[in-house]
């Protein structure tokens, strides 16, 4: 079994990722959190008006008799928060510029591993899924250090490849089964460059945050993509598809940065409308800061 796995796994890389993830997680550790939600539980938390579809078991009959109103009893409960990591492993995530030390996918894997570590230490179960990519398998939601180890294995094995469809239907199909099966309270963290999602991307990804779930998009960019420090005539080829653009980088820089900001703004606005948040990071930035920003976003604070 181990020898079979060795064919596909870089044990050295796995060890390095483990160490780094632990270091990052330790640096970002913010303490045990309480995942409170209202609903069925032990400690009464008040009433609210009945709404069609509410479970009739929590109908307060005494209140009905006393006030002649339909009220539902609410309770606070200590519960675990499921973390679902969705890592974009399409071809564009394999990009690394000359000045960068990590590919975007490597950086995303590092962040994912650190988040897994944080979740495991908090006692929350973690699930791992990929968009595109090859060689790796999605991991079902599980808890404990074993889940962390398995995540590391898959994050090490993942090879960037493939593309995402531009159409809404294709994107929804790619995310089908991930968002729908997730229980309420699940926190989705999508690690992607968000460049190949097309027009439907903000809506489809934001939909992960509906139904009592929380969606955080982490845009991972190479410094070259974030700053576009090129000069003079250049022919640019997209890593996915056949698109080629010949331009003068010096002259096109301002317009590119504007377009990138507009894209980020679209994702951010759409996410916030659904209670989510967008976190932007560069592969040359400190991953600890990135994880902290994600955790802040997960708690509903500004990243």
């Amino acid at each position, binding site marked *: 079994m181990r020898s079979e796995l060795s064919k596909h796994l870089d044990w050295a890389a796995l060890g390095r990722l483990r160490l780094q993830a632990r270091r990052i997680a330790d640096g970002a550790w913010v303490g045990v959190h309480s995942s409170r939600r209202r609903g069925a539980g032990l400690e009464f938390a008040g009433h609210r008006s009945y709404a069609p579809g509410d479970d009739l078991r929590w109908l307060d009959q005494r209140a009905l008799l006393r006030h002649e109103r339909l009220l539902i009893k609410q309770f606070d409960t200590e519960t675990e928060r499921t973390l679902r990591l969705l890592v974009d492993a399409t071809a564009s995530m394999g*990009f690394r510029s000359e000045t960068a030390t990590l590919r975007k996918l490597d950086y995303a894997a590092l962040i994912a591993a650190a988040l897994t570590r944080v979740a495991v230490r908090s006692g929350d179960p973690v699930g791992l899924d990929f968009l595109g990519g090859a060689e790796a398998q999605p991991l079902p939601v599980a808890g404990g250090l074993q889940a962390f180890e398995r995540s590391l294995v898959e994050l090490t094995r993942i090879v960037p490849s493939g593309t995402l469809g531009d159409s809404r239907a294709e994107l929804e199909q790619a995310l089908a089964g991930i968002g729908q099966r997730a229980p309420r309270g699940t926190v989705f963290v999508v690690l992607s*460059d968000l460049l190949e999602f097309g027009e439907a991307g903000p809506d489809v990804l934001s939909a992960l945050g509906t139904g009592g779930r929380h969606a955080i998009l982490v845009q991972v960019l190479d410094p070259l993509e974030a700053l576009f420090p090129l000069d003079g005539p*250049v022919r640019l080829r*997209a*890593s996915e598809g056949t698109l080629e653009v*010949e*331009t003068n980088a010096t002259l*096109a820089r301002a317009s590119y940065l504007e377009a990138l900001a507009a894209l980020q703004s679209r994702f951010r606005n759409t996410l916030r409308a659904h209670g989510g948040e967008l976190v932007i990071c560069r592969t040359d930035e400190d991953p600890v800061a990135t994880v902290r920003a994600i955790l802040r976003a997960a708690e509903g604070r500004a990243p």
Partner: protein
Amino acid sequence: MNFLLAAALGVGVLVFAPLVAHLLRRGRTPERVFPPAALVGRLEAHSKERARLEDRTLLSLRAAMVVVLAVLGATPLVQCSRLSVDRPHGASVALALIIDDSHSMRAEVKAGRTRWDEAILGARQLMRSMREGDAVAIVLSGKPARLALSGTTDLKTARAALEELHQTDRSSDLDAALELARSSVKNLQQPDRKLVVLSDLAGSVLAAPDASAPLESLRQPIDDCGLLVARRQNDRLSVSMACSKAASAARGLHVIAAAPIESILSEPARLTRLSLAPRPGTQALSFGLLANAPDFEIELTPGDANAKNDRVHVSSEGAQLNVAVVTDASHASVITGGPTVIEQALLAVRSDASLRPLSMLPDETKELETYAALVLNDPTGLGPETRAALGQWIEHGGVALGLLGPASSNLSLSATLEPFAERGARWEANRVALDVDAASVEWLGQDARSLRALTRGGRMRLDGAGLPGSASAGTWQDGVPFLLRRPLGSGLVLSAGLPASVEYSDFALRPVFLALLEHVVSEAEQRRGPGITLVGEPWIFPADKQVRIEGPLGPLAVSAEGCESDGNPAPNCAPGQQSATPELAGRYTIFSDGGQQTRSARIDDHEISDAPGSAEPSTATAAGAGESGAIDASPELALALLGFFAGELVLRLGSEARRRRRAARALS
């Protein structure tokens, strides 16, 4: 070619370097993977377009710089093909430029450039290669050959004189031009004397050992057909045209007139069907004309190498030389009958002349106006009205020849011999055959020797019978005048002491008689004329007339003997004989003394039909003025190089600014 020259010119191979660099640069456009490429503004079309325009211009500039650098390195070793004076001994040179200004030099040999242009260019190049101390003379070989500039060391003046030369439609007279050129440099001090002929040498071979004809480009055969003359003879239109040997395409004739062609030609359809094969040499065409047809022009189409001879004017005036012959046919005819001796002789002299035998002289000037010359044989005297009409006609340019005989001495009371002689002229019967002094009539040419034993029954004694202004133009052996010449107004009166009748003398049968008639006809052509003469033949006018001539290109200069100052008539001068020489073919209107007449100057057919000549190889090499010479063009080349650099700088600055503006527009 030595190693240094080869190496310098070898730098020129680097002209391809900018091209290769350009291609490499275009092929090495930096290409890289960039995932968010879709977010980058596309400048492809603009950048390609700008690169193409900018790069091409810059490429040309850089290639030009490389070439200039190569030539600069090779200068002054590089041998240019421009003409230059060869100096085998390194000494000063006396150069006689013989420039052909005949009609054939007006033919185009390159696009928009005529042989004349090429010849002038060659002359300029030769002038440019001359140094201080060299002398130059310019001779024009159009007939008659003329000295445009006598030998001078003032090269600035020579260049100015060269620039003042212009093309003409003259015939060519190369032999006379060579003689003139030799004489123009003969007495100059320069040890080397060279004759350079810039001509097409039409119809001739230059074999003079002291002359060279360096411009071979002038002697390329050309496709040319031209109209020489269009005469109107009553109801016929006679057209003469000539074609060169190299003429190949068929031609057609077109009438150009304000009036419809149906009112000009009797068979207009024939003209439209006409397709003239380009036959080398001359050919004649004839068409029927309608009565009272207006003046018009005819044109040869399509155009060819020489467009200057494709159009000719057909006029109703002065189209033909009309000569009136007044004689008693019973005395002046030969025994076998037919035309009189005078008519036969005139036809022998000028076959195209129109002869009008008259039984008696008209007594009105109007009736004489149509004639250019009048031959009066043994008149029996002239009445007052006839004398007045004749005198007036002569004063307006008529030429009259009076052949006085025995009848002229028997005058009636009111008749005289004026304007030929006074009443004192008398017939002297003499059985002894008398001779005319050949020396006194040498001006008639070699035929003057045929005047021995001329008389058969006597002679007219003209001594003491000369009218005022008369001068003896020939005498008998005993000194008695045989021929009197008397200018009268614009015309001329010649009085001979023998009649044409063979009963009294052999005069009409001698060659000198033909020479005399030829003289009469040519004088008539010059003074009143048939209206058509060859270009370059002078027209002579009396001195006491105010003459003004309008030609195809404006006024034609009229010169007067003894009144010329720098080639122009001097003011307030009592001139002698006036003359004008048409230099272009076409129609001229002459205004003199209140009268008006029309003359035409035509092109010599040899100027079209004769193929370009050649220069014997020994001639060209012997002359030593040719197409070689080391030309140091370093200053010009360096200047050009500097200009190229400045051009590139300006181009780069300008294109950069434009590129930025366009990019900003494209991205917005």
